[in-house]
């Protein structure tokens, strides 16, 4: 009881410090408990979704015309998959849609009819229109939960696809819970009627869907090898694969990164709390040395006095940790909502009290341990030693920084002398500043990167982001077409490349590569070798930074790519920080690509406009000049007008069907009506498809950018508060401790400002050194963050690093200076008459 009274006395005397420890432990417990609870919630949300929907764990999408039954047979024969489900779906890569706000947007969409959906999973509908209303809809569509949770659509809303300048409006009949294909970063699966499937089959590519589950370890590389061996065709280039683990990783990875960042912040606050405890016990003991002696003389044992200090921190740390734990439990539904928005799935939490309890107990135990380690020092001060204030005030050592040798300012000199007298406290302060500095500087880098939305992310995609991507009809001379487009005044740049779906297998790797090829990489704007150089010859290649790290391949190594019929070796000349296609792309010249795919010709024209705003108008212009895309024309109704006009329109429609659905490259026709011959050809069908990579990128990255920007801003503010609390407490306790010294100096004529400056300058060296260390560490943390979260390395901005470090130093000094303002309250008269 008497111990508690001593503790309570100390607490009452130092309310500010006690409040700081409560705050820091509260925040630590809150962040750690939230992390502990959320980690399992997120994972279980996915598992539950797969369980409830009965979704297949693996889905392979083969280009329909290249699909062979043997691919399915291999699964059944070699992998003993008993329940292979096969169906046809449509795939629109970067399919244009009109957002709810009327803006043009794009997503990778899979269209499936209801029977296909039921083959893949249960088709668990949620939030749907009444049946009688659905029956009245001419084009109903069921969308995955992403569109409800993240995009904000509601049943009954219009959902419009756009292709070749033509709108395909659907009415949202409802939403459904799905296992796979619920991610805007990969693909989204829309369920439509059989009639609409037929309708859209003229617009989007047809794929063969193979869905299956397997208990066995499934290796894509092995499967592709088996398929290629039995079909003599390269499979990797015709398949889009997806599975539960990939979806889970892709949807949760980003969230996990933020949770780990929260843990990092909590570690920072914990370090600060523990330092504050050590610091405070030391200073309390110094201050209360005589009191300790008196109490010991009165019969209190060292253990009892130690316990009084420990009790104080068990009390403050306990209040903070328990409150933080309770806050985490109360906050759980809010976290569910945030998680739901991030992973586009319903998250139902049963608050895991045990985990929260473990976190709270761990923090209290840690606080107790640290307090115990320092409070045990009471033993070193038996009454007589304590009366003499320990040995601290007895100086027998060397006079460090003698004033006799002072060169410039007395204030600077006295400040630096002060540093030497309180080295241990400075080391502690340094550790706190380093920890907080890493967090705050990293957050500053993030904020800077995302300050203008997703533009920063576009810069590290490692691919060109043109305003318009136009796939040409086969047979169209790409170079000539590009030359023609370059002449338009709206056009800034035109590049010729392959469609992004060109995948190749890499020997010794279980990660296929998307090939990005240009005849001359120096013409690209958004592909920058991090190290090395662009490939210049046909046997050269650049790989992504993630492939470099995960596969331990480096510049100068050889890499073997498997084409349709041959394998070729390439020399790695450069490393590109690339976020596209799971960050595993390879880059090679057109000639280099032809070594493994001799028959492939570049079929995609990438157009960058001088003014981005011109995109819709210029797309219309291209469509009117070079024909609507063949798919669009095939869908078009015959035009109104004269007989000849109607005949020509009908002929165009027929030709478009031949071209888009049967792979016909050239068509000539002649129709005689009476004496009149109406003739024509398919030369004006040059465009197979038009899309905008920029719009797709926006839909995939805008939310990431917004969330990260907000998070980083709050992190900066949060850490700034923590730093202010710590430095403020240190400064105030220094003033309290050195009240006599400052009073004496005031009597000599030192102004309060000079003394505040001295106190501030005392932390200058430790702040500068800590900021430098924090800068180096924060760069390292940043690299880990980007590689783990996005598979890229972003270039570090030296001015930003220096600026952030300088701002940190300035902030620490300002906080200390302001906190040292309590020096003003020291009354010389009171001190002298005490």
């Amino acid at each position, binding site marked *: 009881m008497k111990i508690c009274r001593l503790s309570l006395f100390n607490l009452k005397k130092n309310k500010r410090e006690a409040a700081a420890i409560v705050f820091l432990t509260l925040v630590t417990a809150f962040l750690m408990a939230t992390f502990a609870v959320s980690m399992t919630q997120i994972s279980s949300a996915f598992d539950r979704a797969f369980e409830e929907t009965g979704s297949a764990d693996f889905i392979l999408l083969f280009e329909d015309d290249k699909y062979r039954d043997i691919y399915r047979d291999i699964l059944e024969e070699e992998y003993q998959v008993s329940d292979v489900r096969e169906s046809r779906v449509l795939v629109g890569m970067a399919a244009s849609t009109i957002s709810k706000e009327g803006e043009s947007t794009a997503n990778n969409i899979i269209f499936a009819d209801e029977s296909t959906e039921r083959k893949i999973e249960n088709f668990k509908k949620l939030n749907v229109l009444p049946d009688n209303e659905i029956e009245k809809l001419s084009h109903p569509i069921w969308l995955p939960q992403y569109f409800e949770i993240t995009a904000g659509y509601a049943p009954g809303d219009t959902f419009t696809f756009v292709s070749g300048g033509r709108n395909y409006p659907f009415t949202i009949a409802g939403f459904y819970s799905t296992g796979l294909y619920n991610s805007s970063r990969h693909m989204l699966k829309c369920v439509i009627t059989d009639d609409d499937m037929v309708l859209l089959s003229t617009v989007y590519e047809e794929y063969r869907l193979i869905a299956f589950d397997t208990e066995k370890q499934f290796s894509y590389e092995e499967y592709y090898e088996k398929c290629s061996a039995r079909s003599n065709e390269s499979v990797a280039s015709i398949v889009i694969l997806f599975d539960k683990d990939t979806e889970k990783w892709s949807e949760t990875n980003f969230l996990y990164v933020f949770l780990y960042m929260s843990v990092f912040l909590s570690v920072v606050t914990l370090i600060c709390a523990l330092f504050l405890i050590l610091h405070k016990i030391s200073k309390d003991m110094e201050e209360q040395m005589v009191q300790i002696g008196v109490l010991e003389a009165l019969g209190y044992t060292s253990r009892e006095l130690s316990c009084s200090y420990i009790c104080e921190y068990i009390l403050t740390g306990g209040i903070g940790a328990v409150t933080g734990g309770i806050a985490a439990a109360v906050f759980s539904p809010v976290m569910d909502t945030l998680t739901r928005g991030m992973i586009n799935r319903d998250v139902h939490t049963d608050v895991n009290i045990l985990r929260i309890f473990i976190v709270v107990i761990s923090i209290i135990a840690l606080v107790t341990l640290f307090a115990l380690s320092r409070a045990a020092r009471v033993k070193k001060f038996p009454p007589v030693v304590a009366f003499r204030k320990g040995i601290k*005030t007895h100086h027998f050592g060397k006079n460090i920084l003698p*004033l006799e040798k*002072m060169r410039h300012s007395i204030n600077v*000199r*006295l400040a630096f002398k002060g540093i030497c007298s309180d080295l241990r406290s400075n080391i502690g302060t340094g550790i706190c500043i380093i920890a907080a500095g890493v967090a705050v500087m990293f957050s500053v880098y993030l904020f800077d990167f995302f300050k203008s939305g997703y533009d920063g992310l576009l810069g590290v995609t490692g691919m060109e982001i043109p305003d318009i991507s136009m796939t040409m009809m086969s047979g169209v001379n790409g170079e000539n077409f590009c030359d023609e487009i370059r002449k338009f005044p709206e056009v800034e740049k035109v590049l010729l490349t392959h469609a992004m779906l060109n995948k190749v297998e890499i020997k010794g790797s279980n990660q296929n590569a998307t090939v990005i090829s240009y005849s001359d990489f120096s013409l690209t704007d958004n592909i920058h070798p991090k190290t090395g150089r662009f490939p210049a010859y046909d046997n050269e290649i650049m790989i992504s930074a993630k492939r470099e790290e995960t596969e331990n391949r480096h510049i100068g190594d050889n890499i073997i790519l498997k084409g349709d019929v041959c394998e070729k070796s390439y020399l790695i000349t450069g490393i590109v920080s690339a976020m596209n296609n799971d960050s595993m792309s390879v880059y090679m010249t057109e000639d280099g690509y032809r070594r493994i795919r001799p028959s492939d010709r570049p079929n995609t024209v990438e157009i960058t406009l001088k003014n981005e705003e011109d995109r819709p108008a210029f797309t219309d212009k291209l469509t009117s000049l070079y024909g609507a895309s063949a798919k669009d024309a095939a869908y078009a109704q015959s035009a109104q007008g004269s007989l000849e006009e109607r005949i020509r329109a009908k002929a165009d429609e027929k030709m478009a069907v031949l071209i888009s659905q049967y792979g016909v490259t050239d068509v000539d026709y002649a129709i005689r009506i009476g004496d009149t011959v109406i003739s024509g050809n398919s030369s004006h069908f040059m465009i197979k498809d038009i899309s905008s990579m920029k719009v797709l990128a926006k839909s995939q990255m805008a939310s990431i950018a917004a969330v990260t920007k907000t998070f980083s801003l709050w992190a900066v503010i949060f850490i700034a508060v923590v730093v202010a609390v710590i430095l403020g407490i240190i400064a105030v306790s220094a003033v309290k401790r050195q009240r006599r010294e400052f009073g004496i100096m005031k*009597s*000599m*004529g030192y102004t309060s400002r000079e003394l505040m400056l001295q106190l501030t300058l005392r932390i200058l060296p430790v702040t500068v050194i800590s900021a430098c260390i924090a800068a180096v560490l924060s760069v390292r943390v940043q690299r880990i963050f980007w590689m783990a979260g996005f598979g890229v390395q972003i270039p570090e901005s030296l001015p930003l690093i220096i600026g952030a470090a300088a701002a940190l130093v300035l902030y620490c000094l300002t906080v200390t200076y302001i906190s040292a303002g309590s020096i003003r309250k020291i009354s010389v*008269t009171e001190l*002298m008459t005490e």
Partner: protein
Amino acid sequence: MIPILRTEKLCKSFSNGATQQHVIKNLDLEIMEGDFTVIMGASGSGKSTLLYALSGMDKPTLGKVFFGDTEISDYTNDWLAVFRRKNCGFVFQNIYLLENQNVLDNVLTGAFVVQKNSPELIKRVKELLAKVGLTEEMQKKYPNQLSGGEAQRVGIVRAVINEPKILFADEPTGSLNSASGRDVLDIFTQVHENGQSIVMVTHDIKTALRGTRVIYLRDGKVVGEHRMAKYGGDDPKERREKLTVFLDEMGW
């Protein structure tokens, strides 16, 4: 003689909860340049309060304090600090040396707040310390290694190193034994002989004998004043008797 310090209707009160304690009441006083003024009075008469008000260490509640022609009672604390460093030196009963600095640095901390570092200054500091009996070896010692008398001598050197226009001392021998006290008073006498104005608060008649003017305070008011010749310039016995008579009259 020209007054170096002057007060007009000086009042100083302290509030203690609901009660106000008026320590100095409407005090008009002049301190002359070159004088060794001793302020005496019973405990609680306001001696130290007056000293701190005169020195700009504390602000009066009412009234004015003039240093020469400059009124110092209305300025900010920082302005007063700058004023003190330029014009005043202080010697305290509790000495108040900086514990973490050695003797030399204690004096230099006071010196460098006004003067720039120079070999001449260092030489002068060392000479002054030597003059009060603190050898080169002792100059390297820390306050906790000094006797009370030695520490007070350091305090005096620190107070006079910037050649202040006026030196304030608050019972400088109060915590010293008689031998050390005498040594310290000898230093004060020596400083005064060099033309230094001194204002000293004391309880001790031996200390008061060193002054040239004794002011007696009672309830915050000057109730008597006694003038003396410079110390050593008259008969010590007679000097003591006269002062004793004065103090008896004052109710000492």
